[in-house]
């Protein structure tokens, strides 16, 4: 069931692995891994909004922003919480991500604690 799923959208296998490891702290949730935006969109269209989305903003073929735009267009975005992650740590990047529809923004390399905290918040905080 989608409400029990955390969707992972990340192209780099290592990062995916790290995130997955972190997410294993939330065993009640199912983790779906996708390597790019298209895959993710396909899953979302099929399965509906998950409990949380961890979205890498910089990906080949369809990046995070584009995907968010798609979701917004399809009206799916407000039903999801998206935590954006990116190596881009400059000032404008956070604002940009939030404006695109991210609920929170995390920078790489991951601060494990910060990721855990954000995921926790994302899963438990009321909408």
């Amino acid at each position, binding site marked *: 069931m989608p409400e029990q799923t955390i969707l992972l959208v990340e192209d780099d296998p*290592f990062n995916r*692995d*790290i995130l997955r490891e972190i997410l294993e702290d939330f065993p009640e949730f199912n983790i779906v891994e996708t390597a790019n935006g298209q895959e993710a969109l396909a899953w979302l269209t099929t399965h509906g909004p998950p409990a949380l989305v961890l979205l890498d*903003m*910089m*990906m*080949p*073929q*369809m*990046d*995070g*922003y*584009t995907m968010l735009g798609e979701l917004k267009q399809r009206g799916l975005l407000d039903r999801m919480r998206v935590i954006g992650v990116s190596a881009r740590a400059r000032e404008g990047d956070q604002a940009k991500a939030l404006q695109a529809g991210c609920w929170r923004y995390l920078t790489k390399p991951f601060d494990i604690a910060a990721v855990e905290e954000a995921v926790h918040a994302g899963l438990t905080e009321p909408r």
Partner: protein
Amino acid sequence: MNIPAMTTQRSRRFWTLVLIQGFLVLVLLLSAGIMSVLTNRLEHNRDVLLSYLREVSYASTDLLNLQSSLRGFIASEQELFLEGYRQSLPQLDERLSLIAGEPALPNELRRNAHQLRTDIAQWQINYAEKEIALMQSGDVAAAQTLLEESSSIFDALSMRTEDLRTEVRTYFERINNQLSFYNTIILVMVITLAVLLLVSTVILMRFWRRQGSLWRELQVATDDLQERNLALQTSAQAQDKVNQQLRARIDESRLINSINELMVTGTPSTPLYSIIAQRIGEMLNGWCSIVLEPPGPPSERLELVALYHPDTSRMGLIAAWLQNQEIHKTEGLHAPLFTEKQPSIVMLNVPQEIRSPADLEPELQPLADVINLSSYIAVPISIEDRPIGVITIASSQLDYTFDAEQELFLEQIADRISSWIEREHLLELNRQRATELQTSFNSIPDIIITFDANGQRTRINQSGQRFFGSELLNGPTANLWRKPNGQFLTPDEDPVTAALRGNAASDVELALLSQDGDLIIHTVSTAALRDSERGVIGAVVVARDITVRKELDRLKEEFLANMSHELRTPLTAILGYSELLLKRRTEVLTKWHVNKIEGIRTGGQRLLGLVNDLLDVAKLDAGQVDLQRRDVDIHTLIQSQYNLLQPNLHQKNLRLQRHLAPEVPLIAIDSDRINQVLTNLLSNAIKFTPESGTITVSTALLHVNADSSISWQSKPLPDPLPEVEPGEYIVVTVSDTGVGIPQESMPHLWDRFYQVEGGASRRFGGTGLGLSIVQQLIELHGGRVFAHSQGSNQGSTFGFLLPVITTNTQENLPYLHHAPTILVIEDDQDTARIFEHHLYDAGYNVIHARKGHEALEWAERIIPAAITLDLILPDSDGWGILAALRQMPHLADVPVVIATVNDQTSITPGLGVSTYLVKPVTGERLINVITNLIGNTQTQAGHILIVDDDADMVHLLQSALQEHGFQTRTAVDGSIAIDMLQQSELPKLMLLDLMMPIVDGFQLLARIRDDPRTRAIPVIIVTARDLTSEEVHQLRYAAQGIQTKHHLDMETLVAEVQRHVPTKEDAPDAGADDLAR
């Protein structure tokens, strides 16, 4: 044909002829007359004579009768006979008395006749009568006796009578002859007369006729003359008129010329206008006025700027009156010039009603006579078809009117005035612009320098002057800038040369030499200055101080380098520890752990790669990459790459094909860097080629010709190659069957950070630095990179060209800042390299010129601190180069140290080192050199040996040296010098002439150098400026004889140079000791 003269002549002739003829006729007539008279007389005489001839013949007869009568009487005593006697006697007597009394007869004849008569009478008396008487008396015998007695007398008488007769006859004949003669004469005279008359008639007729024709001719000529005369008169009148006009035009012309002169030197102003008006007025003896628009905003008014009136005493008043009038453009006689743009107003005869001004103030009435116009011409002064003023001429005298020509004259003046005014405007504008330009030029902080077409500096702005200072600016321009690393620019790299060729450059980084000797980096832009007709007429160089920017750049680079370094240090930990952990994988670690640690390692490795790339980029930017070139077989490198990349190839099932040309030689490259290049290209190929693709590495050797065509020296490669300088190259290509390069990416391919699929949505990772680094590294080697692709998914080929250089080529030694530069002119590579290293070690920068002309080019562009010159150069005469160097003013004080080389053994070159001075040598120069070599007299005792066969030279040198306190000894020949060297105290220094008999300079030099005792004596060769090939040959010959050890001479050379050019480290007189070694 001078008819009058002829006529006169002819007349004279005629009359002379007539006179002569007349005279002749007269004479003839007279003569004829006389002759006829004479003839008449003669005829008469003749007739008389004829009658007397009869008479005389009768007389004779009578006498005979007498005689016979008497005889008869006597004989016959007949009285009858007496009758005869009586008859004849008186007849005879009468006859004779007739004859005697005839005056026509000659006197003698008459006398004879008379005498005869008398005698006859006598006879008569004496004899005849007696006889008769006797007879009568009857005495016949007596009578006969008497008769016989008288017969002789009678015979005599009769003979006399006969004689008389003959006389008369003769006389008669004579008269007759005379007469006929006279007649003949008369006839002749008559004939002559007739002929004369005929001739004269003919002559007369002819003359008359001729005269007639002459007369007619004369008449015609006279008519003609008259006509001509008339014509002449008319034309003379016309001519007068024309002359008058001409004079007037000449005057006008002169006036225009004089006004031109005024205008050339002066600017339009009231005084000059006044002069113009005055000159015109004076020439025309009339008014002349000039009115112009007043300065300031355009208005309808005109102001009087000049006035001339022939009545100069009242001119002032008139001018004042006019000024008061307030002249308007649209009022007055001149109005049509403005309102209707009429070209001129010409009133040669001004109509009565407008002759005088309508309203003249009472006090000006006295001027009325001069303020009126009888003739008036006004012409506008226009600028660009707009009238801005009027120039007017007018006459007040009723009898003096202008003519139409004067309108033309006035127009010319007006023309000139308007040009003048315009010119003044333009000049003013020009001045303003020039000032603006000058101000801009000087206020710009950047350095701006302009050059002419020959590369000579024409202008430099204040910033430039302040930067370079006057001393540097007086030297050669090429000295002002360097490469950023401090090395001199070659003529091709010189910005001015490039600009003059038409190759403008933007933002080239050069180091400019400031007046403090500092090299300050500027960004330099150059451009050619062009003239539309003549093409390139100069160049302009703009230099901006980018020290600050450079400093920033440097800080950035430093920062980067530091940061990279800092980045690497933790990486050591990451990579190191993960490696360590993995080493012990079989111990405590689970698969999960191993997995994660491998992840750490991979991440760390990736990071290291990136850090290295960044570091490389930073170093390349700062020019800090020094290539360590070694002769390398590039195929070996390719092979090791192949080995290294096997796993990666295997992973994607890629095939690596190698097409390596065997002709490819060893080339001098930095193998690490080229490896880096190969790795990069191969990794890219692997990355961008999908599974089961093929990667091909190929090499080839080629030659690029001067016309840019390619001669392959091995199996050719199909790929198009970039343009490179002519030379020998190897080419390496890496082709793949991968994703290819889209057309739009081609231009940016090598750009830093460029990625074909850049941005967030990229399939392949990477920083985009790789290709940029590849390009920089290849270009650092002097090569070029290239790439092409047919398009997306059609594979791509990346490649590079590397010039075939081997390590025999000159290395670039780093530049020593603030160190003196020595120009080494040496053709032998090895020798040059050795020089360079030695000099460099001693603290000098070296510029190496291999050929004579190269050396001269360098010498012209920079001021080296010293020059070493090998006299034996392949393409030029070493002495000639020396001479040429000596002729360059900015090298006048640069010492030239001659290094002659043993050209037989080029492997271990021998050197004879001396200092050469070229004659004429000033004493001062000589002393300087000597002092430098051995110190002055205060520091050095001992003598100087002068070896020269030229007595004058010797004397000069001696004087010069002795003046400075040096002791001298002399030798006129090398052999003597050798003796002196062997026998007596060694000189401290030798001055040596090259050309001497017996033992010349070279031989002596060889001897000196050979002998360890004398080897160390400094030798100065003083030689004439022009050396023959003989002398050069001598030098070569001599050079072979000089055997010296390699090592020692290097030091000597350096020491030599140091003597002349101390570096910062050297003590001032360190030299002397070195030489003693």
